[in-house]
Every structure is written in structure tokens, then in C-alpha cells.
């Protein structure tokens, strides 16, 4: 999967768990911007598992891994490698 394809799919997933516009900067915190809260985060993780056919193990359930588009993309890249 190309980096662009993975990011596009990630953005599509994010849009399913929030109604707010996504940040233009991939490094911007999704939590501090108010885009994700504590109850949207579990939805995001579940949606990522479904979209990318992965199982996020409990040891990876660290909010910091999902704090920005860049971090989520990096996590998905690591999982694919």
C-alpha cells in the first residue's frame, strides 16, 4: 500500500468518527484541537481495525499513538511492515 493511499484511507476513517473539519497540519494534536475526545478515541481505534484489517493489541492502546494524523499514519505503517 502506498503512503498516499494509506493516509487517504486514514482520513476517511477519521471523518467517520468526528463531524469537525480535520486539521490541515498532520502533526496537530487531535485531542487538543477537540477533534477527538475520550469516547471518540475507542471508535477511531475500532474503525481503524476494521478499515485496515488489523487488531490493535491492548499494549498499543496508548492515546499518544493516536494523537495526530502523522502518528496514526506511522502506527499503521509500522503495523504493515
Amino acid at each position, binding site marked *: 500500500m502506498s503512503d498516499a493511499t494509506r493516509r487517504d484511507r486514514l482520513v476517511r476513517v477519521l471523518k467517520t468518527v468526528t463531524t469537525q473539519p480535520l486539521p490541515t497540519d498532520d502533526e496537530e494534536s487531535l*485531542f487538543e484541537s477537540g477533534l477527538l475526545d*475520550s*469516547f471518540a*478515541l*475507542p471508535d477511531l*481505534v475500532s474503525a481503524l481495525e476494521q478499515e485496515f484489517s488489523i487488531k490493535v493489541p*491492548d*499494549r498499543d*492502546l*496508548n*492515546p499518544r499513538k493516536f494523537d495526530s494524523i502523522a502518528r496514526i499514519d506511522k502506527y499503521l505503517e509500522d503495523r504493515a511492515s
Partner: protein
Amino acid sequence: MRAFLHGFGMHLPERVVTNREMAARVERSAEWIEGASGIQERRWAAAETSVADLAVAAGRDCLERSGVEASSLGLIMVASGSAPPGFPGPAAEVAARLGLESTPAIDIPMASAGGLFGMAMAAQMAANCGDVLVIGAEKMSAVIETGPLDPNTAMLFGDGAGAALVSAQPGRWEILNAVLHSDGQYREALKFDWSTPLRMDGLSVILQASRKLPFAINEVLARQKVAAGDVTVFLLHQANQNLLVRVAKTLGVPAERVFSNVARYGNTSSASMLIAAAEWADTNPAAGPVVFSAFGAGFHWGALLARSS
């Protein structure tokens, strides 16, 4: 070795602390508090009321509802994450105030999941010890008053106590199975030690709880080959209404199947699941499987399956 639940009990302080009162102290609106948690009000005990006072009241209520004399108890367990530090813990005082002079009394210093862990351990021990009175008692108002009120946590908690009577003698519900888990790598995510204010990483707690609760429930159901859809009621730790709804959704059951009183009492930590059980049992519930489940600081979590006898 079979074990049975004979009854439940509860005690809540009289003083009602509304969201409006709380909002004035934490710079949040009453509506924001309800939207974030589903909580409308909670009970706070008077300054002179102790965890042991709450525990004794719930224990007596449970014994009365179960038709059991304190003198017949073989063991007492008192779970609390908010009992004052030091020793002895509240269990010894509870036993003494119930008139017991040599019955073993054990403290479980565990917030939130303590009531569930007590019930599961009692089910294993009842055949050897005799009737076990399991109590969860919390004075969370004392915890949140340690230092300035944190707007994100202070509005969640209430005081109260719940209790269950577990016995090897046949009773109203048979305990079929239980699963317990702990993962100390998250011990800093939810922490309180009386020297600093309660620390809660809400993102981490909710993320872990929303995954681990359904997993533990499905684990105990699978052991007994019971489908989630066939469960009469889910009696969960009353942490947050949004979390209860999420667990129901993950399990694929209607939200109404998850008993909730969090709107009236807030999060009473280790007492909450037992208080929920006491209120549910008062409703002359339908027969069928019953699931208990809790998650809390540690992290500790698990689930217990029972069925009407």
C-alpha cells in the same frame, strides 16, 4: 464447589449534590457535566462519616435482605479505594460493629473493581469459610477534596456502599464463573495516594475500559457458552453513562439491558456495581443469566456470570 448469591444491600448518604452545586465549584455548566458523564447528581457523606460507617450500613442492609444473621458469617471482605491510609483498614471495624469477635475480616484496597474481585474470591472461599459478606464502600468526596477540585474528575464521584452475600448454600443466584485480570503497566493512569490530588488520564482510562470490559464479559460468557443476547441484565461498575452505552453497543445488546443508576449516584467506585445490584434486585427481576463486570485503577478488571437458581 458451588457458590450462590443470596442478596444485596446498599447505603447512600442523605445529602444530594446536584450538578448545579457542583458546577459552581468546578467552572463547568450543569449541562456539560451531564453530557460528559450522564450524571445528574451524587451523594456526599457528612464530614464525620467514615468509610466504615457506610460499609456497616450497607452490610446490615444486605444481611437483612438476605435473611442472615451476622453471627453466621464466616468471612467479611471490605473493598475500598478511599479508606484512610494506614492500618487497620475498615474491615476489622466493620466486623466488630456487626458484633463479631473472631470472624476473619479482610480489606481489599482496590477502587472500582474491588466489589467484583471480592465477589469472585468469595465464590471460591465460601465452601471453606461459610457465608461471606462482601462490601464495597467509598467516601470519594474525601478523595476529590484533597487539593483543589479538578473539573474533569470532581464531578464524577459520589459516596456510598453496596454489599453482597455469597454462600455455598443454595440461594437466589448461582455463580457460574468469573474472570479477573490486572495490568500494572497502567498504574499511573488512575492514581490517588492522599498526598496529591487524584490523577486520571481520562483518554487512557476510557480507551482501556471500553475495550477490556466487553472482552472480559465475552470471556466469561464463552466459558459457560452463554450468548450476550441471552443475558437478562448487565450489572456494571457505574463509571460513566457514555461508557455503559458503549459497552452495550460493543456487546451487541440493547443499552437498556445494562442497568444504570449513574445519573443519581455518580461513580461510587468499588461500591457502584453492588449498589446497582441491590437496586436491580429490588425490581423483582426476570430469571436468566446475570453478568457483573467492573474496571478500575490498577488497572484491574473482570466479569462474573450468575444465573437465577
